[in-house]
């Protein structure tokens, strides 16, 4: 985006009316659906307006890491599918997709919401490994927030597959055993252009963003991961305002998630 057009985005923000008509602290309408992917142990479709992502959880039985013989594993991965935007290219994961994956992964991992000890089947021998994959279907910016929410909703909706006596898994038979989480870590990214802070950037707004901070929280007082992005620095005052705004927004989103099975 050229400088004059960035100025135009900034002027719109300053007037309090964004390019799509939203206010600065307003998310697009959020919808969460779960359990639509028959082949996944847990799945979710999250839409922010027209932007859409899918997340699916697959589980498998694996040998634990030698240094953590009684812990299962959890991993989150995001792929920027070339299907979802002309700006994504085929080939090895881009820096953006790696950052997105890692920020979502860290938010969930560090929240300790998923007790990996529960995933142990036989100490030193067999543990459950959980892999959550996040893919945009209709890319529309703010992939960390959308993907993070979808990943949590997918885990929340999941049931263990049937573990057979020989230690293999029958994926065609789901048990009634739910995957348990003690909390719902929600990432909220606050963007900054000039001295203006706003949430839920579209892909167009993202091109003009100068700095951003992703705050993942499990409740109004507990923050479990941070990621500062963008080329510009943040002042300490910015940082404080961003944390407050992120926690306020996370609370609203958590309420929507609580209404989902």
């Amino acid at each position: 985006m050229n400088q004059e057009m960035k100025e135009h985005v900034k002027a719109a923000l300053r007037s309090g009316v964004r390019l799509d008509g939203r206010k600065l602290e307003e998310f697009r309408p959020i919808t969460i659906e779960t359990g639509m992917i028959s082949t996944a142990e847990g799945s979710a479709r999250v839409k922010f307006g027209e932007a859409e992502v899918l997340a699916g959880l697959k589980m498998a039985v694996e040998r634990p890491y030698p240094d953590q013989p009684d812990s299962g594993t959890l991993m989150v991965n995001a792929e920027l599918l070339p299907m979802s935007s002309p700006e994504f290219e085929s080939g090895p994961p881009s820096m953006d997709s790696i950052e997105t994956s890692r920020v979502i992964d860290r938010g969930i991992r560090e929240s300790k919401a998923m007790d990996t000890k529960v995933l142990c089947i036989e100490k030193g021998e067999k543990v459950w490994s959980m892999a959550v994959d996040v893919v945009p279907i209709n890319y529309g910016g703010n992939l960390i927030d959308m993907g993070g929410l979808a990943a949590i909703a997918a885990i929340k909706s999941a049931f263990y597959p049937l573990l057979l006596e020989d230690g293999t898994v029958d994926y065609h038979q789901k048990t009634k055993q739910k995957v348990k989480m003690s909390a719902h870590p929600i990432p909220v990214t606050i963007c900054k252009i000039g001295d203006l802070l706003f949430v839920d950037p579209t892909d167009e707004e993202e091109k003009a963003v100068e700095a951003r901070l992703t705050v993942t929280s499990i409740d109004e007082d507990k923050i479990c991961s941070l990621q500062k992005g963008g080329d510009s620095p943040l002042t300490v005052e910015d940082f404080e305002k961003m944390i407050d705004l992120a926690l306020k927004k996370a609370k609203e989103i958590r309420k929507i998630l609580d209404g989902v099975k």
Partner: protein
Amino acid sequence: MGELLAKEKEVVVPGQVLAKGMDFLPSHGTYRLGEEVIVNRLGVLSVEGKVLKTTPLAGRYIPKNDDIVIGKIFDILMSGWRLDIESAYSAMLPLKDASFDYIAKGSDLSKYFALDDYVVLKIVNVTSQNLVDVSAKGQGLRKLRGGRIIRVNSAKVPRIIGKKGSMVSLIKEATDCKIVVGQNGLVWLQGSPEMEVLAVKAIKMIEDLAHKQGLTQQVSDFLKGEKK
């Protein structure tokens, strides 16, 4: 006698049989297979006597001489600029057609047009090799400063512009926005933030309903309703 199986103004799709018998003749968007005339491009059917043709409903922009388009600079060469015009092929803006000023060889071309700048252009030549030459010299042709760009299906541009520009004038008057509609489906807008949002909504509405009748009234009602 041949039999016509679809109606004028109907949306038709590839593989659809339009007519049986040898009386009907295929044209744009249709072809003959044995006794039948079949559609080979998504479009709206028009029946002109015995000739069956379609007007496309989708597809990337195909450059034509004298079209006014909006292009985005993606490369600066010694001899001029290359622009993305939302077509299968990029366009070339040579030095001599860039400005009424004399541009000396070797001068800093980004002073005229820099990367990521949007420019209103006229298509001056499309060669058989699909090389597209454009000019930025002429009435209304210029670099677009500020504002925003939205993308619409280029097949719907004639409806957005309207008869003699009536539709786009309606939106300009109602919203007080400056609007440039490129034949290639890029639309530039500049106005107050609220009014830009309204203008974009109106344009998207025309894009969605382009194949329907009575659109001008609907857009006019929409703009009146939203402004209240």
